């Protein structure tokens, strides 16, 4: 047997690769159990169009590559999420369309799953640079083991890609900030373009990175100012030159009418917007917007143990910062800490303090998850450090067993919460924060999620009627088509105008759904017959009734 000593860089690369592969396998397995949601339809539809275009290109050659045939294919998504849509389209064409290696659903999502898994590897790459392997692995675990996080990552969503894009750029930026070869600077510029092609929300991160650079290079900037000069980060210069080229190369939609389409893309990406959304049981469609939306969503959605460890991690970093002020130590650890703080402030605190005219509602609080995961990793690492010190006088075996046991308990809680029921992960508030009941009461249940509605589909098919009308006020009308297109539903479903004239009603749990059942009982003299329910932790999330 030969022993091969790996350099730390190679070892970290291999660990990152292992994380990517393991995450991809988990996402693929969970994705097979989760129906395509209506909110994914745009992206999976684009992937299908790309796949058909590739199929046509294979038969008809280069003629179809022209703008006239390319544009209709990309029109549904335009310049958003093109890379994963192109990858998904190719995988679907080969593995689902030409062969039967993958189901349609998996083929259409595959590109998105690849980039979502890449996000986990990037989080590792980001954290390991400053805080070591143990913290980096914990950070990945705490990011992935959040029910809402996992639910988002098993599908084709813009939020998952935005997180990957942020982490990708942040990892390269932090590496280039440490200095070294010009290669990292050029690579950071190129990765900025690539990230932009994944999600235009990276523009916000660019602002955060500029603020971070000013903080990290403040001494240098002060020196330069004394000489009447200014300092400009080399990565920024590289980004300005290289990023647009890479972005354009990765975004075929912009190859025609480049100027007009670029302007449209960037103005819509950063423009304030309000989408009517429930907050604490009330529908908010206009200012004043609830300032606590992001913080409340984060606290309710993260497992409570993760929230506690995040607080512990923040306290550890604050202490390190305080110590470093006096001792001038640990600049890299602090640099990552500052970047995390800025990212969390942007995702959670900015929606609370921004004026309504600049607000994006609902805020994209989910972007905070990986950064909070990193803080929780610091918190757990600190706990392990404390346990080691407290048990220093005990035998190594006892110490090891106690630490592994405690860490396993802490990690298994979010793990169990996260993988227990893939179809209801969207409704998985932390049980100590009220659980699924709290989701129902606050009306934050995304019932347009076909993953959840798919659980009801067998009850509809059991009625053995070729066509029925359903009144489902909280479910998008297109969900039924999505389920049929993906083979989850046989019956043709028509949307009914009201509950009284419908064959069936599908209502969400809570007061609204109960009111409909009571009104039908009063009208007909008998309650509508229960045909199916989707439940989590004893709470009814959706229920299907037969009216006639």
């Amino acid at each position, binding site marked *: 047997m030969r022993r091969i000593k790996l350099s730390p860089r190679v070892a970290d690369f291999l660990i990152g690769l292992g994380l990517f592969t393991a995450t991809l396998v988990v996402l693929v397995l969970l994705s097979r159990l989760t129906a395509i949601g209506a909110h994914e339809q745009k992206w999976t539809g684009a992937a299908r169009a790309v796949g058909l275009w590739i199929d046509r290109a294979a038969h008809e050659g280069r003629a179809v590559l022209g703008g006239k045939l390319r544009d209709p294919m990309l029109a549904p998504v335009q310049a958003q999420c093109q890379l994963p849509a192109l990858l998904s389209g190719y995988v679907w064409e080969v593995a689902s369309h030409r062969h039967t290696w993958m189901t349609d659903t998996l083929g259409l999502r595959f590109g998105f799953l690849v980039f979502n898994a890449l996000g986990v590897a990037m989080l590792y790459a980001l954290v390991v640079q400053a805080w070591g392997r143990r913290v980096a692995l914990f950070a990945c675990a705490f990011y992935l083991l959040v029910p809402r996080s996992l639910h988002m990552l098993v599908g084709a969503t813009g939020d998952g890609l935005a997180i990957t894009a942020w982490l990708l750029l942040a990892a390269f930026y932090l590496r280039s900030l440490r200095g070294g070869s010009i290669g990292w600077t050029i690579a950071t510029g190129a990765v900025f373009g690539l990230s932009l092609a994944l999600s235009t929300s990276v523009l916000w991160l660019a602002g955060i990175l500029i603020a971070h650079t000013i903080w990290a290079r403040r001494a240098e900037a002060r020196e330069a100012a004394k000489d009447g000069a200014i300092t400009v980060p080399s990565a920024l210069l590289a980004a300005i030159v290289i990023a647009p080229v890479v972005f354009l190369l990765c975004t075929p939609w912009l190859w025609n009418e480049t100027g007009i389409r670029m302007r449209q893309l960037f103005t819509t990406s950063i423009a304030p917007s309000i989408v009517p959304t429930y907050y604490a049981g009330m529908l908010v469609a206009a200012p004043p917007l609830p300032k606590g939306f992001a913080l409340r969503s984060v606290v309710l959605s993260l497992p409570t143990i993760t929230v506690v460890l995040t607080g512990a991690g923040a306290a550890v970093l604050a202490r390190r910062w305080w110590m470093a002020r006096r001792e001038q130590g640990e600049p890299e650890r602090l640099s990552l800490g500052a970047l995390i703080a800025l990212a969390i402030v942007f995702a959670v605190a900015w929606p609370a303090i921004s004026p309504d005219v600049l607000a994006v509602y609902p805020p994209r609080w989910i972007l905070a998850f990986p950064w909070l995961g990193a803080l929780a990793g610091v918190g757990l690492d600190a706990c392990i450090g404390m346990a080691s010190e407290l048990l220093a006088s005990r035998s190594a075996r006892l110490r090891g067993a106690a630490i592994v046991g405690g860490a396993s308990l802490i990690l298994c809680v979010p793990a169990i919460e996260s993988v227990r029921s893939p179809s209801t992960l969207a409704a998985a508030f932390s049980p100590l924060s009220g659980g699924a009941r709290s989701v129902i009461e606050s009306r934050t249940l995304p019932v347009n999620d076909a993953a959840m509605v798919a659980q009801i589909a067998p009850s509809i098919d059991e009625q053995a009627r070729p066509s029925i009308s359903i009144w489902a006020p909280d479910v998008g009308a297109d969900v039924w088509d999505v389920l049929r297109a993906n083979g989850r539903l046989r019956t043709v479903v028509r949307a009914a105008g009201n509950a009284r004239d419908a064959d069936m009603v599908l209502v969400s749990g809570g007061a609204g759904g109960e009111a409909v*059942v009571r009104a039908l009982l009063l009208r007909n003299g008998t309650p509508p*017959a229960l045909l*199916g329910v989707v439940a989590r932790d004893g709470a*009814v999330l959706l229920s299907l009734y037969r009216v006639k």
Partner: protein
Amino acid sequence: MNQAGTSLQVRRARAATLLSVLLVALAELIAVLWGALRPSLGPALSSQARAAVAPMAHPGDGVVATPAAFAGPVLGLLGEAFPRESQVFVEPSRLQHAIELSLGGSSSPELSGWDTKQQSRVGSLRIRYLSNPKPVPLRYDLVAKLQPGDALVSSGPAGGAGAPCNHSTAAEVELPAGLPLPWAPRSRFSCGNDPRGFVGQVILDDARGTSRRCIWTFPTTNAVKVSWPKVAPGSFVRVGAIASRSPTGSTRAKVRFKANAAVIGEREVDASSTFDSFDLASPMLAGGGEITLEVEQLTEHLAPVCVEASVR
């Protein structure tokens, strides 16, 4: 010595921190497992539930589903097999017997003190036939008698005669989102053009989730008045009243009862009110005659007020 003391304090603080973190993890694990073990409800129980309820059902008996938050799915198990002549969502003191359908086996607080006569279990559903040890007989149900031949409805300034609200049995009308009722019932007294401004029998739930058949009113700047001219004799009126939450702010309303033009009692209600009943006793009720309900909004935040009332 000081250094040793500080070190000990630091060790204790660290031990306490670690213990707290582990306790939170343990508490969350228990909560997760407890949630996973919660009873679930499914249509598979339907046929067994129907078979169990059928021999217990008698005309006039009540049907109570508990917990209140699951009333819809639990009653939905019975569907068209629901006993037609039974009473559901009524104040239970009037009942002699009731069938309780309980998901998970919790007892309905409304039926506390009742005697269990029969009991069976269907999966996670417990079905009990209960007997009321002290029923309070019903003399006149003001909610059930909200009919054109039995009641007169008007709307106008408080204390005045007001304009009559006409009864109709036209089609149901969808109500705006945000109200606790999806549509206005077919049989209703319409007061003006606002679809919310009707008076009719509905079923609403209170702040605790308890549902009741009650009289929907939507007083605006005007008070709503409902009169029953031919009420049977009794000794008191048992009342439960709630005001729904208004999206614009807190709602308060005054509910006033008169017997033969004399005020026998009034009560303020708001969004925190429940259907817990209160009795308005008066010698004016002994000979029967006219009972009048007046509902008056006390704030500018408009919301429906629902009143359950019966003469005993």
